[in-house]
């Protein structure tokens, strides 16, 4: 590994943070809670999703501890059911869905398109408050005694057979859905209507393209989840019969409606992460992303195809063989745009001047783990294999490779990459590289054994298992411990860096995005005057000519 680095920090003895920035133009709790500034709302989101990430993570820790031994000894089996249900609900709806879009996306989309703010700042703030209400409902469900439906709320289990707080949790997710709808709506309008002069669609950073695609999914998919949850709640509360077989309803319809949202939701989670990876890969190999147009359109293609594959979650639930065949084919199809992205990133690396900064390490982690996660998705999309593997640990490993190995790596990559922009300070380099490595090792140790467990037939969602599976489960639990350390480290050193980190200056990575041409942390209005864009995205020659006769403007 070369020790070459592109990091260019201002001389630390003389460097100062800008006098005026979004962080210090107003003080006090009220100036944060009533803010319309997209950057402050992003910080609010960052704090709240970190909180829920660690609650969800604690649940994961409990699950792995219970699975250390074949018997259910740490907790009763119904407690175990509640713990994995809450883990899923919190991680999916309160962490993964808002993770990159609501924090990094919220912070960057307006700056990347050259605008002063998102189109609807008040709706943006409202979306954060909705998120908080959703969080309160979910926590209430947890504290009052939990939910044990799994995160999928499968009927008639959720409507008839359980005595837990399904309604409270369901309302929480309903509200979280509107938070995500408003974020998506804001992004779409901002990207359409707020671009700076000269910022054409094909000059947009790929980060913006992938958020655009994810926003389409949020806006079109989430309302279907909302109405489905309303029907479940009505069925549970007053006993209407849309999903109740006794009254003529069909539980399979619930599955269709639920997965019509929840499969696209997978792409809501992963697409913004892919946007982060495009930025990071380009910056640290000093090359324009190979096949820019293909990568941009593959995001949109994922969004479009993503709407037509939902029934692959239902192959064993009694859908007709013919529709299963069609959905299987369509599922194979969605692998194509994802592969286009991976190949184009690989081609971007080819002959690039690669440096191994922390965000890049996470990005490499993403590429490897997401590829494994994606390919095992193809296993599960093929009809015969799916019958064998579904509802086993294979599927658990598969979606954790995509969601944790893919999305969480991308999220951490993005947080490290834009941390200097958000706070004006660098994180500690050596420690963060250690954290990236720890996360990667811990992740593989946790989830790779689960592929084998699943292939051997260990079913998911049980607190106990046959003793012959214990060795692999112990490995997995050991890995989870390492992974936990990998997540705690950034939490600690990022907080530390807020006060003690090196001053980053406006463009520590020598990156080309509009966000790197302004001071760090940015002004409340982002730009001193509206930028006029006259260059393509990822144009490093433009950047070089720019820095030759650079005038530093600090507000």
């Amino acid at each position: 590994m070369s020790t070459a680095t592109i990091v260019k920090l201002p001389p630390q003895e003389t460097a100062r943070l800008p006098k005026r920035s979004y962080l210090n133009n107003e003080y006090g709790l009220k100036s944060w809670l009533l803010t319309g500034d997209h950057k402050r709302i992003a910080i609010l989101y960052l704090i709240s999703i970190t909180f829920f990430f660690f609650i969800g993570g604690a649940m994961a820790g409990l699950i792995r501890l219970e699975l250390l031994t074949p018997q259910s000894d740490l907790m009763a089996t119904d407690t175990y059911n509640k713990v994995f249900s809450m883990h899923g609900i919190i991680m999916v709806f309160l962490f993964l869905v808002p993770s990159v879009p609501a924090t990094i996306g919220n912070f960057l989309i307006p700056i990347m398109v050259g605008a002063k703010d998102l189109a609807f700042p008040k709706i943006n703030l409202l979306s954060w408050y909705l998120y908080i209400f959703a969080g309160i409902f979910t926590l209430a469900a947890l504290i009052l005694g939990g939910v044990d439906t799994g995160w999928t709320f499968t009927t008639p289990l959720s409507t008839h057979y359980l005595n837990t707080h399904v309604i409270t949790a369901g309302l929480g997710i309903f509200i979280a859905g509107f938070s995500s709808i408003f974020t998506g709506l804001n992004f779409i309008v901002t990207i359409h209507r707020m671009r700076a002069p000269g910022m054409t669609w094909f000059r947009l950073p790929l980060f913006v393209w992938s958020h655009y695609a994810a926003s389409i999914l949020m806006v079109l998919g989430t309302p279907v989840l909302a109405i489905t949850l309303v029907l479940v709640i009505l069925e549970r509360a007053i006993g209407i019969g849309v999903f109740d077989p006794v009254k003529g309803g069909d539980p399979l319809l619930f599955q269709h409606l639920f997965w019509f949202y929840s499969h696209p939701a997978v792409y809501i989670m992963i697409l913004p992460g892919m946007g982060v990876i495009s930025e990071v890969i380009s910056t640290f190999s000093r090359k324009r992303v190979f096949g820019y147009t293909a990568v941009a359109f593959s995001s949109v293609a994922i969004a479009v195809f993503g709407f037509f594959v939902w029934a692959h979650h239902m192959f064993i639930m009694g859908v007709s063989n013919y529709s299963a065949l069609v959905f299987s084919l369509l599922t194979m199809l969605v692998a194509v745009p994802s592969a286009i992205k991976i190949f184009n990133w690989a081609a971007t690396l080819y002959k690039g001047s690669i440096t191994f900064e922390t965000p890049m390490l996470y990005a490499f982690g993403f590429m490897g783990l997401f590829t494994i996660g994606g390919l095992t998705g193809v296993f599960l999309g093929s009809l015969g294999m799916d019958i064998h593997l579904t509802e086993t640990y294979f599927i658990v490993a598969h979606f954790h490779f995509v969601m944790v190995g893919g999305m969480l790596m991308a999220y951490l990559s993005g947080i490290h990459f834009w941390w200097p922009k958000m706070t004006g300070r660098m994180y500690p380099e050596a420690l963060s590289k250690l954290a990236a490595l720890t996360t990667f090792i811990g992740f593989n140790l946790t989830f790779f054994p689960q592929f084998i467990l699943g292939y051997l037939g260990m079913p998911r969602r049980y607190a106990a298992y046959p003793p012959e599976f214990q060795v692999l489960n112990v490995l997995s639990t050991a890995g989870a411990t390492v992974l936990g350390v990998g997540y705690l480290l950034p939490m600690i050193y990022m907080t530390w860096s807020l006060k003690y980190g090196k001053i980053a200056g406006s463009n520590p990575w020598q990156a080309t995005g509009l966000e790197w041409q302004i001071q760090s942390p940015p002004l409340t209005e982002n730009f001193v005057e509206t930028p006029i864009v006259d260059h393509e995205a990822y144009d490093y020659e433009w950047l070089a000519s720019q820095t030759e006769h650079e005038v530093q403007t600090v507000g």
Partner: protein
Amino acid sequence: MDSQAIATQPGVHDAHAEHEHAPHLRHHFESVEQQREASSFGMWLFLLTEIMFFGGLFTAYLIYRNWYYPAFVVGSHQLSIFLGTLNTAVLICSSFTMAMGVHASELRKRKELVGWLVATFVLGCVFLGIKAVEYHEKWEKHHVPGLNFSVQDFTHPTDAEEKPLPMDMAQKTQVYFSLYFAMTGMHALHMIIGVSILLILIVQAWGGMYTQGHMTTIENFGLYWHFVDIVWIFLFPLLYLISRHQ
């Protein structure tokens, strides 16, 4: 390089001149025009999410109506076609008064605007009142699935012209009524939200807020109101008019 791209964006500097003169222009927009386009685009997108929201219910309706057609027919015959038609007329009228309100706002006529908005508000309330009467009637007839339901009317109809349904199909009328309450209930919820917003708009319009050139809010609310109206235009035939010629 590509100077075309810059030329397509109308002059930034002209927009700045406008800055000083438009009190409703929020700071992060370049021009009044951009602000208007953004909010109306946002409203259309929101209506798209609403279509998807009701879409889930319409899908369920489509499937169950195909499966349980006889149950849907007898269920539908229990609804009052008179009240349904009356409500349809009330809503169409309210859409007209709303459109006239938007027109008055464009012409900057304050009193007319308030008048039309009040008319819309009253018609909205009339709709909700009639809906409440219908719901009450369903309760009296034991047609509320889950809370108060009996298949008596369908297995032993009082009306001699109606053919009695076999027990298992009669049970399926619960799906029809579940959908009836879910769909009209969601629609009524949208109406309640609508009339609540109308109240605020009426107070603001009285203060002259929407008759000085800034009318995006009125326009957007108009879109919402028409959308809720259109949902009803679909609900009415689907729920009330199944096989009425028999």
